[in-house]
């Protein structure tokens, strides 16, 4: 399923609507990498609220989205990881280090705006 990417001011918002195949994830990554450059975005929010499961491939792709966009000058925030998903991830030893996370879209955008102003101190 294709993930729509919306532009909102200096940020891009990608909201995952349903479970994604590996190909969808790769497509999302490529599209974000391209759009960050085209639209000169400063931040990316990937909303995974709809995901019940985050497997190791999805995690790796999310991480590579964050690293890729960072190289192109945009900070990525993963938002909406569900409590069960978060718990399962740490149980399985899956980590999302040096990638910013936030509770939901609102918090994610607030975080990006804080970072844009240069006062960001998130990152636990």
């Amino acid at each position, binding site marked *: 399923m294709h993930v729509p990417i919306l532009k909102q001011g200096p940020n891009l918002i990608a909201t995952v609507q349903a479970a994604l195949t590996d190909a969808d994830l790769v497509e999302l990554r490529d599209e974000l990498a391209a759009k960050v450059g085209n639209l000169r975005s400063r931040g990316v929010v990937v909303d995974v609220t709809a995901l019940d499961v985050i497997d190791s491939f999805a995690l790796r792709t999310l991480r590579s989205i964050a690293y890729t966009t960072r190289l192109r000058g945009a900070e990525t925030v993963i938002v909406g*990881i569900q*409590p069960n998903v*978060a718990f399962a*991830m*740490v149980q399985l030893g899956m980590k999302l280090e040096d990638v910013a996370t936030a*509770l939901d879209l609102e918090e994610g955008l607030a975080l990006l705006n804080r970072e844009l102003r240069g006062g960001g*101190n998130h990152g636990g």
Partner: protein
Amino acid sequence: MNDPSFQPIQRSLLDEMGLTEKEWARRRAWLAFTEEDVERLRELNKFASSYADLVIEELYNHFLSFEETKAFFRDPQTLQRVKSLQKAYFKGLTEGDYGLDYVAGRVNIGSVHARIGLEVKWYMGAYTFYMRTVGERIFRQFKNDLDKALSYYFSLKKLAYLDMILAIETIIFLREQTIRQQQEAIRELSTPVLQLREGLLILPIIGLIDTQRARQLTQGLLGAIRATRARVVILDITGVPAVDSKVANHLIQTVDASRLMGAIVIVTGLSGDVAQALVTIGVDLSRIRTVGDLQGGMEEAERILGYRVVRDENPARGTVR
């Protein structure tokens, strides 16, 4: 033991322990306790009745010669009552009725021992004493037919083992039941997650953290982060008596999971001893933000959230009585 009022309780205990007809048959099969054994024990009944009183006397003399077992029979009435129960028990061994009622009787003995705190060593010892004195009598009685004596003795021994297994299993079962109840109680004491300010949660942990509790605590915290939209969580471990590498790993997992949901976790209350111990065993806590005490944690959290607490030099009227 034959008191009918005991029976319903025993039956429910049997159910809890999974002692059904089928299970009991399996156990007898496992010990090779066959119909022939039942027959032999029945033959022994008359002879057993002839020496029951004597054996019980000897057994109680033995009990009374040890301080530890004597303590259970301070009161002569108790002694009398237990003796008569014991007699019924020994007669029961050779009455040839080894159904679930028999099992219930044996389970009852285990539960009584568990209740009065009689240790297994005394029970086993007494059983050995009984087998020794009865064995002597059987061999003396059938000294002209040692094969027969041996087969009687072995039948009795199988039954004795069936008995002992039941009684000891009951003791273990009841003890485990106590442990389960205590664990349940500990779980119910579970850690509250309190909201201190908008976006700030505090989780005061008191007592030992094991895998089960860490799991429950983490799940509770993650749910609360979502419900209250918290951005910072203070995990105060002042009340955790010991932090080893296992506990530290649990804490790291809690911190990682919270971070995945976008919340920063500040761990406070690591005492000097705990900190030294962690350094000594080489636990890497560099990924966790730690602050010495709860106050420091609060100040750090407020700084992250952008709160600034200012003391009012002239408090409004009515706030100070």
